[in-house]
């Protein structure tokens, strides 16, 4: 609309006050900075007894609201470590009860009855001892069978003894190995028990 009529500009900026050839401030290409420098410093805050008292009231009110039951936390805050200061931060965790005559009944939170929770747990407990008993009985039976087998083979008892001895030796060796739970063979390790034996004569020297 402004450019019709072959280049005749009908809107001249002179009307709004900008003269011809005047230096206009450069057009900004980016958004204004987040904290622009202020030309005028802001007026200092009101200071006085009233202002200080209201400040104290405000902070106390905020602190008090955090301890009241109206401050709803999504779940009990998990403490990583029990803090010493927890003893001194009393929080009223008891829920307040609104007057239900004045509030819609649908907002009532139904409390779970503890009886319902207990009944499914009881059969579980009775089942577990039964299972344990059965397992114990089975184990006893297998052990009995093993004993019977062992007692019937008395002829092979001698053969068993060296086997047992070897087994014991192996066991002893195994025990030594497994004592320290390491992969290294015990004989390579020097306890250092023989260290002090040589220097019994020279007591004056310092022992490192």
């Amino acid at each position, binding site marked *: 609309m402004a450019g019709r009529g072959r280049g005749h500009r009908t809107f001249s900026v002179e*009307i709004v006050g900008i003269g011809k050839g005047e230096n206009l401030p450069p057009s900004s290409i980016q958004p204004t900075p987040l904290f622009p420098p202020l030309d005028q410093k802001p007026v200092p805050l009101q200071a006085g007894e009233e202002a200080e008292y209201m400040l104290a009231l405000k902070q106390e*009110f905020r602190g008090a609201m955090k301890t009241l039951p109206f401050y709803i936390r999504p779940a009990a805050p998990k403490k990583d470590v029990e803090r010493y200061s927890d003893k001194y931060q009393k929080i009223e965790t008891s829920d307040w009860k609104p007057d239900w005559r004045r509030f819609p009944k649908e907002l009532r939170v139904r409390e779970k009855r503890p009886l319902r929770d207990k009944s499914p747990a009881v059969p579980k407990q009775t089942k577990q001892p039964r299972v344990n008993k059965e397992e114990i009985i089975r184990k006893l039976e297998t052990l009995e069978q093993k004993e019977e087998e062992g007692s019937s083979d008395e002829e092979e008892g001698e053969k068993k003894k060296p086997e047992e001895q070897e087994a014991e030796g192996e066991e002893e060796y195994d025990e030594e190995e497994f004592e320290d739970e390491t992969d290294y063979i015990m004989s390579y390790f020097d306890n250092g028990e023989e260290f002090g034996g040589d220097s019994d004569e020279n007591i004056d020297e310092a022992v490192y």
Partner: protein
Amino acid sequence: MTAQEVRLCGLLLQEHFGDVVEKVGTHLIRSGVLTLRALAHETKLPLDLVKKSLCVLMQHGMCAFGAGRRGPAGPVEYHIICEHILHMLRYPRYIYTAKSLYGDTGELIVEEILQRGQMTMSSTVKTVADRLTHNMPEGQSMDYSEVVSAFSRLVETHFLQRCPPMASAGSSSSEAVNTPLPVWSTRMVYIVPVKIELMHKCQGKRRRSSEDGEAEQRAAKKTKTDNSERGDEGIYWQVNFQRFHLHFRDQAIISAVSCKLDQTSSEIVRTMLRMSEVTTPAHAAFTQALSANEIFRALPFSYNIARPILDQYLTLLVNDPMEFVGRTGDSGGGMYVVNLHRALANLARATLESVVQERFGSRSARIFRLLLRKRHLEQKQVEDFAMVPAKEAKDMLYTLLSENLVQLQEIPKTPDYAPSRTFYLYTVNQLPTARLLLQHCYKTVGNLIERRLYETKENKRLLEKSQQIEAILASLQATGAEAAQLTEVEEMITAPERQQLESLQHHINKLDSSENQVDETIFLLESYINSTQR
């Protein structure tokens, strides 16, 4: 609800009631009206938490419920009352006003009721008496009757009011529809229940002997059984914010008069406002007409103003360009009224001018005032009237224009709005500019709160450490430790840490006081905008 208001409401809810209530509240503000199930579904929070949040909001008067769109047979719908959330900014001011008018007792009563939203009179009196006794020296205890009298005075002057009865609470039976609601007369709102059975004296702090102990035990048992028989069950009291706002408005007018004229004139205006407190309805444009004779009789004795001098002062007030007081008749020595709406408009105008002055300088303020007075001016006229050189005037006008404080009005000479044949006039409209500034104020308070939360979060570790050390010190002092141990514990905070803590506390105090101060501006602008809407 503008975006800034919603943001500020969210921050206030989070600070006072936690994240859950904040989520529920902001969602409900944005959606308008919702049922419980829709709200739970959309916020994806567990139903129990949503129920609790709604209960908390309703207890504090920020949420209301009513029959839904499907009528009483359908589910209940909830909506948020945003103004009550924004009033939370002003709570310290309410408490301080109660203290200045009714002493510590009044202060604690208002504080308790603000913290709990709604309370019965008996529970308020008991809690406040306990708190006062706790602060008193040994052996003394607070008499319940003093607290009751303070409570009654607060009710008589309308600072506290009864909570209105709720509509049929969710039970959608046909009976509820048919029984009419009890007639809720405005008089009942301010009647204190007479039959209250309370223990007359609060229990002292220490038990002196076993006999006293037994008596107290018996008394304690009695109070437990008496809880249900207090006599004022179901009568809940809440703070009457409107009354406090009227009080603040009166205070603002009186201080403006005392600044502009002098102390005596402000006393006269104060007397006039006090006399017409009860007779003037809340949204009246001016007070009831008072004759000069009545004002003379009602002036406080300490001022000793002679009758002719009073007349002179009244004439001075009437002729003042601020137009606080107006003359409406001649009977009784002259009938005078206080122009409330005009006073509010003038106060708002002064606020706008002050904002422009502090942000852009005194010459921009001069141009702004000029435009407010002369309504429409051309570029050339602005330069001439404001006595500012052309280039600077242009610069200032464009700055104000870019901030939207000044508008450009086109007046065409020809019907086709040709730019060369159109007048371009600068103008300022007070009401839209006031609304704009109000939104800026909301944004400011939101920024202040966020900055405070940021500062607290940054130094969380340090704050926790100082809290722990204070707890240790407190326990050590309680068990009677030596001074050496105490100093050892105190030294656990190093000097630079102590300095950091101090500067953090200083920052937080500054941010908090700034919030209080911005709230005063918010109050003025809100009152002005509300006065124009009726």
